[in-house]
């Protein structure tokens, strides 16, 4: 007997385990889970006592309203609209103030450098290149983020996000995707890379891949300033002043909804083609509403989010500013490198209702989407005359009067911003999470293809009907 025991190997144990597993079949796990539940119930019954029904469950009453089939969705849209409206109206003035201050500083610094006799290219590279990129990023991005993030964090701390997932669950189910995808989308509002990491909570690899591949259709905060600026300059301008900011907020909400629509459509498409399968069931816990703690909201939204994102943008903006200045100031055959590249990209840009400079800006902004608009502005300014832009009015004049932007340009830029390749960090995160070149490539190129297709179709339609 002891001989047999000593010659026992792990392999033998596994073989026996397999045989037993086959014999027990699928019942095994159910039995174990059942016995755990029974035991948990017994212990809990002994330990928990309910004091009279003194308590009046406010949570449940709120939940009945917030997750109601009739009011749930409209309430969600209303909350979203209010957040954008507050962000847009609130960010306008501080943005102008920051731009004025930062560009005033640039002008004084340039005067000083000139007075010291420093060569023009040093001054240009440092101040019109590196510093200007920085100044744009800070003035365009900081105010909206500092307003948007605290509000978003309050919703998060209150416990509203799981209710959103609850409201949207049936849609995701129809699309063959996991209901928790709504939560990963909510994370994507902050940062798509964070949204991709958040998909780890989805058990099914198939549904997790769908969530990863479509997360990019949620505009992250790096893209919000672009959307907000365009909505303010172009959409709001088409309305009487009293409704301007409401219209702008409405436009941003529309873009977000469009993003959600694309998420669902693409999820649906994927789960019927290359990622075939049915949506799996899951339990979603609706946590109690909790009073948000002010300090934590401020810390999370301002340090963790705003400064983190701003810092990342600044790190990318510095080399981007340098690259733009170099492209704009090295001339070959009578035109700058920027001009050549933009001319080369122009036919493609025009076909999708944009132009070569905008496409070039998207190429330069691959490391971080935050700097698209600053890059566009710098390239227009770098190749045109040097004017100082103070506030949205001058930006509008520059874009419309000097570079022929129309409502189509603005709308298509918003669409392209929503539907193009994810930023470098997100692509890198997709690779780290999937460890698959194929899926990383799909994650990067599929949205880009959709972006080109959609903008091409809108541009063609608008031109065909002669609306522009």
């Amino acid at each position, binding site marked *: 007997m002891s001989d047999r025991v*000593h010659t*026992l190997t*792990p*392999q033998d*144990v*596994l073989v*026996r*385990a397999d045989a*037993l*597993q086959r*014999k*027990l079949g699928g*019942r*095994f796990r159910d*039995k*174990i*889970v*059942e*016995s*755990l*539940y*029974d*035991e*948990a*119930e*017994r*212990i*809990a*019954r*002994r*330990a*928990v*006592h*309910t004091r*009279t029904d*003194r*308590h009046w469950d406010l949570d449940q009453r709120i939940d009945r309203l917030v997750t109601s089939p009739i009011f749930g969705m409209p309430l969600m849209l209303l909350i979203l609209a209010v957040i954008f409206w507050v962000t847009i109206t609130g960010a306008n003035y501080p943005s102008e103030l920051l731009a004025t201050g930062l560009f005033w500083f640039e002008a004084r610094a340039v005067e000083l450098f000139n007075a010291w006799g420093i060569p023009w290219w040093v001054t240009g590279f440092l101040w019109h290149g590196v510093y200007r990129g920085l100044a744009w990023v800070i003035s365009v991005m900081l105010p909206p983020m500092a307003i948007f993030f605290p509000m978003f*964090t309050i919703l*998060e*701390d209150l*416990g509203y*996000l*799981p209710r959103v997932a609850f409201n949207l669950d049936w849609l995701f189910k129809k699309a063959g995707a996991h209901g*928790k995808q709504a*939560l990963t989308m909510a994370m994507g509002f902050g940062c798509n890379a964070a949204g991709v990491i958040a998909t*780890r*909570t989805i*058990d099914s690899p198939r549904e997790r891949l769908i969530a990863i591949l479509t997360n990019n259709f949620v505009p992250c905060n790096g893209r919000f300033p672009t959307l907000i600026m365009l909505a303010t300059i172009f959409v709001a301008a088409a309305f009487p002043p009293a409704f301007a900011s409401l219209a702008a907020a409405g436009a941003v909400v529309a873009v977000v909804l469009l993003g959600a629509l694309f998420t669902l459509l693409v999820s649906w498409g994927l789960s019927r083609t290359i990622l075939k399968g049915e949506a799996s069931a899951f339990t*979603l*816990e609706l*946590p*109690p*509403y*909790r009073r948000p*703690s002010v300090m*934590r909201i401020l*810390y*999370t939204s301002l*340090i*963790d989010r705003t400064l983190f994102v701003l810092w990342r943008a600044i790190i990318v903006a510095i080399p981007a500013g340098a690259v733009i200045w170099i492209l704009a100031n090295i001339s070959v055959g009578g035109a700058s490198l920027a001009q050549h590249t933009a001319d080369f990209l122009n036919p493609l840009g025009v076909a999708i209702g944009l132009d070569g400079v905008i496409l070039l800006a998207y190429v330069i902004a691959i490391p971080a989407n935050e700097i698209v608009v600053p890059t566009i502005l710098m390239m227009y300014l770098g190749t045109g005359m040097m004017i100082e832009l103070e506030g949205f009015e001058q930006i509008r004049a520059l874009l419309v009067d000097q570079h022929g932007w129309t409502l189509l340009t603005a709308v298509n830029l918003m669409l392209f911003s929503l539907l193009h390749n994810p930023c470098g960090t997100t692509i890198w995160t997709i690779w780290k999470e999937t460890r698959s070149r194929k899926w990383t490539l799909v994650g990067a190129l599929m949205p880009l293809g959709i972006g080109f297709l959609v903008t091409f179709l809108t541009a063609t339609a608008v031109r065909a009907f002669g609306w522009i």
Partner: protein
Amino acid sequence: MKPVQPTMSTCETCPAHAQLAQMGIDLRKYDRVVALAGNPNTGKSTVFNALTGLKQHTGNWPGKTVTRAEGGFAWAGIRYKLVDLPGTYSLLSASQDEEIARNFLLFGQPDCTIVVVDATALERNLNLVLQVLEITDKAVVCVNLMDEARRKGLEVDVRSLSRDLGVPAVPTVARTGEGLGDLIRAVTEVINGEVRTSPRRPPAPPEVRDAVEELLQLADGLELSLPSARWVAYRLLEGDHRVRQALLSGELAQLVTAQAAPSRRASRKIALEGAQ
């Protein structure tokens, strides 16, 4: 390191008592490894932040922590590494967060595991507690969100809970720091053996008992006398790949030697390198 005074229990005013020193991410040297497990959204990250002084992102929705966060604190001159595991409802499925949690509990061999439970939903939370107790003997149950339970008119009898589970149960309100001193005290008592635990492991259901017994005997033949032996048998009967692989590669056998060794150096090495 900064001492935190106002947040601890009333014992804190007692001058003879040890003080908590938050050590943030300073993990160069530590004496003990403590794991933090629990259902999603029970305030695990809040407990983690309160003890370590770190600012791990907390939020009121399940699934905030999907990776393992680590931090340190010191108590009565002993330095602890605290590992915040992803919040999970069970340790049975194959999703990545559950694997991270249960691999750390099994292979990381923490000196003690704190299971944070939501006092307002005790029954559901106990499912996970029972699963953790299948893997380890050294555990403390942190009954958090006591304030919410009181508001809802629920009374949680922590003594009864502790008796039934066979491990200490400590009531806390992590957000205000209430009870955290008692929690650490319970952890240290479990680690140094002042409190002997006898975790509740409900008998295997009759339909599967024979199969489990047979596997346990085979495991005995391999001299795999782990506290988690029965849980390992469960996993093998379910065809769990990671556990099968650990059995074949001798990783499980290593755990036995590590537990027997007085120095526990091997287990610390595993915890430190984050082997999963």
